[in-house]
């Protein structure tokens, strides 16, 4: 009987025994990311282990390296919250001098990347280090107890963006770090999601194989911070794609005129011109994504806030060069 090759290697670098919450979407992201990285290293250098990880302080850091234990089966270093990219720069430089073949993977959450780590990230990308920076985006400071970050989406409840008499929750649109990264004209930038693991693995492999810096922003769910059912992480992430909330795209060499948009699925109608996606008619309303998460619960009492969100999502897609139609739920 023919044995089917598994879609991604069975090797593990993010080992069982870490202390992440049940249903943690980011743990899934890191496990897939390191598997993909390993495959890329095997294909590129003939050595599946030819990588080291520099990680920013954050929930995935503290849950994976509680002395005297470690969840990491790859060489791994953590220094501080804002400097994973700078630490990775140093590791990469050292490897170069040691003649060690391979690539460095830097990992940071949305806080350590979009906010406090932004400067170090920009420096690392601009200096063209041979590093893949993976931003796992769970859309708030989950390590310190769910405070808003600049990557928190509009309308979301966090402990520092609470809805109240004068507030609908977070009142600023999400910062799109992938676009900022792409502005460095680096070889490869992508967004990904645990809602489409095959696409994520493919992109991580591509990122790991380019020569020079690459940036991948993966949305991953956080049942604690999103107040969502433990078992629904992947479903919620997929709904983010299918409703237009989370776009999947690739930008190579900073070419904003040639952004590769992945089809969202979920029945959306994709219109192309010359192979390029120019319009998407989404079939599922964003409410389907929002309603599974307690962090957006209050919005259903203020439907006009959801309309504001729709407008912001359209504006974001416009930056990507795509006209989108976002349906309202049927009455």
């Amino acid at each position, binding site marked *: 009987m023919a044995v089917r090759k598994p879609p991604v290697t069975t090797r593990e670098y993010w080992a069982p025994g870490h202390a992440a919450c049940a249903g943690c979407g980011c743990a899934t992201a890191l496990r897939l990311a390191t598997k993909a990285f390993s495959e890329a290293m095997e294909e590129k250098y003939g050595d599946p282990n030819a990588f080291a990880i520099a990680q920013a302080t954050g929930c995935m850091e503290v849950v994976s390296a509680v002395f005297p234990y470690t969840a990491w089966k790859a060489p791994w270093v953590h220094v501080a919250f804002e400097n994973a990219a700078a630490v990775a720069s140093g590791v990469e*430089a050292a490897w170069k001098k040691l003649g060690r073949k391979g690539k460095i993977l830097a990992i940071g959450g949305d806080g350590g990347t979009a906010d406090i780590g932004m*400067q170090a990230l920009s420096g690392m990308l601009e200096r063209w280090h041979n590093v893949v920076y993976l931003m796992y985006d769970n859309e708030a400071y989950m390590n310190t107890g769910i405070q808003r970050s600049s990557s928190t989406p509009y309308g979301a409840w966090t402990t520092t963006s609470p809805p109240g008499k004068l507030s609908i929750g977070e009142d600023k649109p999400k910062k799109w770090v992938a676009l900022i990264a792409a502005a460095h004209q680096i070889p490869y930038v992508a967004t990904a999601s645990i809602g489409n693991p095959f696409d994520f693995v493919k992109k991580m492999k591509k990122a790991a194989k380019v020569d020079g810096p690459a940036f991948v922003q993966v949305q991953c769910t956080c049942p604690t911070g999103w107040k969502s059912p433990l078992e629904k992480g992947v479903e919620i992430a997929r709904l983010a794609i299918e409703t237009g909330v989370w776009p999947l795209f690739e930008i190579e060499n900073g070419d904003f005129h040639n952004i590769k948009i992945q089809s969202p699925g979920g029945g959306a109608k994709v219109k192309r011109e010359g192979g390029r996606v120019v319009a998407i008619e989404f079939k599922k309303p964003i409410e389907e994504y929002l309603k599974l998460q307690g962090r957006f619960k209050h919005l259903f009492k203020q439907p006009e806030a959801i309309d504001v969100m729709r407008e912001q999502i359209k504006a974001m897609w416009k930056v990507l060069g795509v006209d989108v139609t976002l349906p309202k739920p049927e009455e």
Partner: protein
Amino acid sequence: MPMRKVMKANEAAAWAAKLAKPKVIAAFPITPSTLVPEKISEFVADGELDAEFIKVESEHSAISACVGASAAGVRTFTATASQGLALMHEILFIAAGMRLPIVIAVGNRALSAPINIWNDWQDTISERDTGWLQFYAENNQEALDLILIAFKVAEDERVLLPAMVGFDAFILTHTVEPVEIPDQELVDEFLGEYEPKHAYLDPTRPITQGTLAFPAHYMEARYTVWQANENARKVIDEVFEEFEKRFGRKYQKIEEYRTDDAEIIFVTMGSLAGTLKEYIDHLREKGIKAGAAKLTVYRPFPIEEVRELAKKAKVLALLEKNVTFSVGGALFQDFSRALINESEKPKIVDFILGLGGRDVTFKDLDEALAIAQKALNGEEFNEVNWIGLRKELL
């Protein structure tokens, strides 16, 4: 044959880095240390130094990249000063806690506000509790030598701590002096190839560095940094001795000058020691029994040597280019700690002077002497004295 060249301390520091052959250097320009990375980038550009030179976007990233490189198992170096060192502050603790033997050359400069690019020691003194070893150079030769010594001590298996070498802004960083550049072969023999003992990022033997420690383990980790500092006392003596054997220049944690029959011993660090020695000669000519002592090593604080020094004098007059607000200078606290339980001890008078690059003249030292003499004569004296203040501006 060793080469003699006339150079600034910044160049001497760059030469020291070249001789030490670090594999990774990460630096950001800051006055007065800018020439260090400039000179190093020339060495790298000319192929005279085979290193990766990372031109980072900030000092925070400079030290972060050094930590990354050192954690990956290579010798690393950087240079900075003042606000740049302050920007590194957070990561300095981490470098020591992770036991990474990084060496920083620091052009000692005042801290803002007001912004001031000139010399005092507030920058390195403010980092005295980070776990780093601290050396202070009196002249450009010492700047070069102490950097080599710092690498050797830092990388010793009994120590494995990062080290900083301070040399005074402009007084040394921008002043040319003849400096002997040791032979590369001799330096190679002295330092050897850096072999990481515990810090490496090698896929064939993956390890996890920089973990989280719960209360059950944190104190022990901090204690190992304490212990490493304690171990450094002996290692520094050994390295000083070896350095003297190989290169002929003698270093001591505390260097004394005309202290044998001194009643008042002035104590200082860095370039002020040069001025002070001349001042002592001047006092001796006048028949005043004064001596000088210079701390070459400030961390680990040379407690035993301070106790020995204290036995020689009735008054210790500390000349400090730093302030610990509401207490005095940092040396004042350290000397007090070293002597508090001694049965016989001299009076300690503290002088804060030369902040932000203000010249320290014989007139200033006369002012300090007068107060020290009050202490000597059993008269009332202020424990903490600001010397050379322009009262008309207050």
